[in-house]
Structures are given as structure tokens and as C-alpha cells.
């Protein structure tokens, strides 16, 4: 399994949906001190809809898959994370149009397009205590792993996302609701960075 097939990607997103359902309370708790206590519920709601869509009509190629995920998240998540993750998947889908599987290089390209779109939509930069802080190092890891085996690259990306997630703890928030708290945002892990890590970890470690 050297490439990311449509099947593998579909499995990823279905398993991620289960993860997010499980992590609902945890993510919502992270969102309480520096946000509005809904990130877990938002993500679980969105990915439950994704799961229903993918189960009802499994997409034939990765492009369609990612686009379905994008549209579903946009119309069911709401909040900040809905349009942001939605844009990520939408832009990624653009690079995967018609493809039934992705090489590491192709996935890296999708990921980069996705992240660029997300950052443009949210006007966020790394260091502002958002999901961008998990996704940016993940992209860097994917790029650094160019040429290496796919699984190794995905594991590196997940590890980088985890580190990026943890690195949000001491950060002062500049974007999203946490920014309203000023100094009081320091010392809390960003919920969006946490859900980003969760997604990438599951891609690297399918439950099978």
C-alpha cells in the first residue's frame, strides 16, 4: 500500500469521524477556558454528517471524496472550524481532481493547497494559537519526508502536528475567540490544533 487510495482515504475519514465522536467532550472542554465550549460538538456533528454521506454513496475518486467532505463540513459544522476545515478540504480536493490514489508528493501538494486556503480564509499565521500551528509543522514534515516511504512521512506529519499542538499551550492567542482573553489565553492548548492532530494521527495509524 504505497499510495493513498480512495479506499484508504475513505477509511481515514470514517475512522476520524469515530475518533471525533469519542473526543467530543475532550475537545469541548479544551474550548471552554479559551473559547465557547463547542469545538468537540461542532467537529463531531460535521464528521457524523461526513460519515453518513460517505456511507450512503462512497466517492469513486479522492477528489470527489475530499470535495464531499469539504461541502459537508461547510454545511454542518458552522463556527470558525467549519469554513476553515471546509476550505482545507476544498482546496485539497482541487489538487486531487479525478485521482483514485495519491502519491506522497501528491498528498503533500493537496495538503499545501489546503493549508494555504485555510490560512487565507482565516487570515492566520503560525504562532497565533490556532489549528494552523498543528498543520504548518505537519506540512513541513511531509515536505521533509519527500522520497521516504509514505507511512513514515505520515507518521512524521502526525508527530509534527502533535508537537505543534502542544506548542500552542504557552502561546498568546491572536486569532479566534481565544484572542479576546489576551494574556488569559496563555497556558491552554488550542482545541482546533488538537482536532487537527487527531485527524493526522488517524491518517498515519489506521485503526484497521
Amino acid at each position, binding site marked *: 500500500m504505497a499510495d493513498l487510495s480512495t479506499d484508504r482515504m475513505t477509511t481515514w475519514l470514517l475512522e476520524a469521524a469515530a475518533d471525533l465522536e469519542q473526543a467530543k467532550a475532550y475537545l469541548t472542554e479544551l474550548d471552554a477556558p479559551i473559547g465557547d465550549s463547542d469545538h468537540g460538538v461542532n467537529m463531531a456533528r460535521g464528521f457524523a454528517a461526513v460519515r453518513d454521506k460517505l456511507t450512503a454513496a462512497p466517492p469513486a475518486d479522492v477528489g470527489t471524496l475530499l470535495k464531499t467532505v469539504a461541502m459537508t463540513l461547510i*454545511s454542518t459544522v458552522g463556527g470558525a472550524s467549519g*469554513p476553515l476545515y471546509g476550505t482545507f478540504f476544498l482546496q485539497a480536493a482541487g489538487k486531487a481532481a479525478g485521482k483514485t490514489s495519491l502519491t506522497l508528493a501528491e498528498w503533500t501538494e493537496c495538503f499545501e493547497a489546503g493549508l494555504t486556503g485555510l490560512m487565507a480564509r482565516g487570515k492566520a499565521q503560525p504562532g497565533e494559537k490556532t489549528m494552523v500551528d498543528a498543520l504548518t509543522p505537519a506540512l513541513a514534515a511531509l515536505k521533509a519526508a519527500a522520497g521516504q516511504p509514505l507511512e513514515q512521512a505520515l507518521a512524521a506529519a502526525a508527530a509534527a502536528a502533535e508537537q505543534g499542538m502542544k506548542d500552542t499551550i504557552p502561546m498568546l492567542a491572536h486569532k479566534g475567540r481565544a484572542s479576546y482573553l489576551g494574556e488569559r489565553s496563555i497556558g491552554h492548548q488550542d482545541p482546533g490544533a488538537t482536532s487537527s492532530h487527531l485527524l493526522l494521527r488517524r491518517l498515519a495509524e489506521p485503526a484497521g
Partner: protein
Amino acid sequence: MKKLINAPEAVVAEALEGMEAAHSSLIKVCRAPDFIMRADAPVAGKVALVSGGGSGHEPMHGGFVGRGMLDAACPGAVFTSPTPDQMFEASKAVNGGAGVLHIVKNYTGDVLNFEMAADLARAEGIAVESVVIDDDVAVEDSTWTAGRRGVGTTVLAEKICGGLAERKAPLTAVAEMCRRVNAQGRSMGMALSACTVPHVGKPSFDLADDEMEIGIGIHGEPGRHRVKLEKADRITEMLMEPVLADLPFKSGDPVLMFVNGMGATPAVELYIIYRKAAEIARKHGLKVVRNLVGSYITSLDMAGTSITLLKMDEEMLTCWDAPVLTPSLRWGA
């Protein structure tokens, strides 16, 4: 958690059903995607006003749908921005040919979702203007942050722009008015107790019996500062000072003063706050020409208050006084 609900997941849908049952002569509730619209929408030749946001701030926005105020309101999940399809479908449904104004509170989620909705609507040839309300002086304004939150001024903007739109003013003028209201309105809020989000089941923060939060928003987030509980007069000063210190209030200005309850604050307490706020405004040389006292933009069952001052001009006064016929704000009709 003690709430008059059936299930956390059902809160928004069931409240919508209740509103529809109670106010069917004024509003129509559309489902999947969810929005509330004026019973007589679209009104031909009138600019349509669409707002929306997370639920839990009732009566805002659904309670303000009707003649002289909003044409549609899109309710999200509790404290969660609605989605672009809600806003898009609402905009299509109420567009009377004169275009649609999106009144958006400045929260990343609301802004991003309304942006996407505006793109979708424009792609269908609907003229859309968006105005983002960001009046909360508790939040430092800077290009490095998400900026100020949209709070109390939103209610006033919806009423005033609704009055103007009813007179068939063009979209640019209604949007211009909305920007003016936003530029001239400032708010600040505080909480005696946190609210409990239904699906969370416990208060979003804990406050000791002798503490309060100053500079809260409307989503159960903690405020800027946690301080010792004070008497009502001192609390009023703590809210009025930053509001007055911020532009644009100067001696002689006519203002509208809006003393708002956060959801669990009895009317009697709001009048005690109003009394002191009016006194402070007077000392500052302001003329309180209109007021609004009540719970209009809330945070579920939070106990607390916010004060909004809006510098008025003649046109704004006329639009404020114009008839309004909605479930939660009504006069002259």
C-alpha cells in the same frame, strides 16, 4: 444542569417550533437549512436584512424578524455560527430585488460563514453587502487579533437599518447606515455567573461567591478580568468608563442608552443599573434621547448585564422611532 429543555440536541429545533407556533402571523420558520423569515417576505423593492449567529442569544436574532427590522435570521447551534447554506437560502428567500444586507457580528465563525454565503449569493446575481459589527470595548482592537466582538450595538443596528430599509432606501444607503451605527456604538458587559451550554451540562467557568467577570462576551467565555464583586453603582462605573473613554462620545452628544440583561438578570436589577448609567452619562454631558432596558442579546442563563451607548443623529432617531413589529421588539404597530 437545570434547564427547561428536552435534550441538548433538540434545543434549537424545538425553540424554533415554539417560535413558529407563537408568532405565525409575523414569521415563518424554514427548516433544513434553518432560518426564520418575515411572514410577508420577500418585500418587493425593499432591501432585505439578514442576520444570524449561534443560538443562545435570544431574542436576538430570531425575535427581531418582522416588519421594520430583520427579513431573516439564521440560527446556528448554541454559540456556534450558522452555516453558509442557511444564510444563502435565507438571502434568496427574502431578496425582494433590492439586494440583501448581511449584518454580521464579529466572530471568526460568523464572519467566515457569512463570507462564504455572500459569495454564493453573489454568484446567483444577488447584490449583497456585509457589515461586521464590532462594538465591544472589552476587547483591544488590533490588526493582530480577531478584533472586537459584536455585541449590543447589533440589536440597535438591526432596528435602525430595518427602519431605513422599510422606507425603501437603496442597499448602499442601508449598508452605510449600518456602518455608521457600528462606528458610533460601544458596549461593555459583565457577568455575575457563567452560563451553562446545554450539551456541556456545567457552567462554562466557575466564579466564587464574591467574584465577577468584567469584559465578557456573549458566548460564556470568561471576561478580560476577574475581580471582586462590587455594588451595582461601582459595576456601572466599571462598564461606563471604558465605553465613554473610547471614541466617539463627547459632551452634548445625543445618545441611545441600552442596558441589557444577559439572560438571568431580573428587570429590577437592570433598572438599578440604568439609574446609575443615566447619571454618569448626564455628568459626562451626554443627552440620553432614547433608551432600551431589557434582555435583548443574551448568553443563555448567564446573570449579568451589558451597557451599549450609541451616538445618535437625526436620521438614526427617525429610523429608531419607526414602527417595528417583531416577536420581541414592537412599537408603532
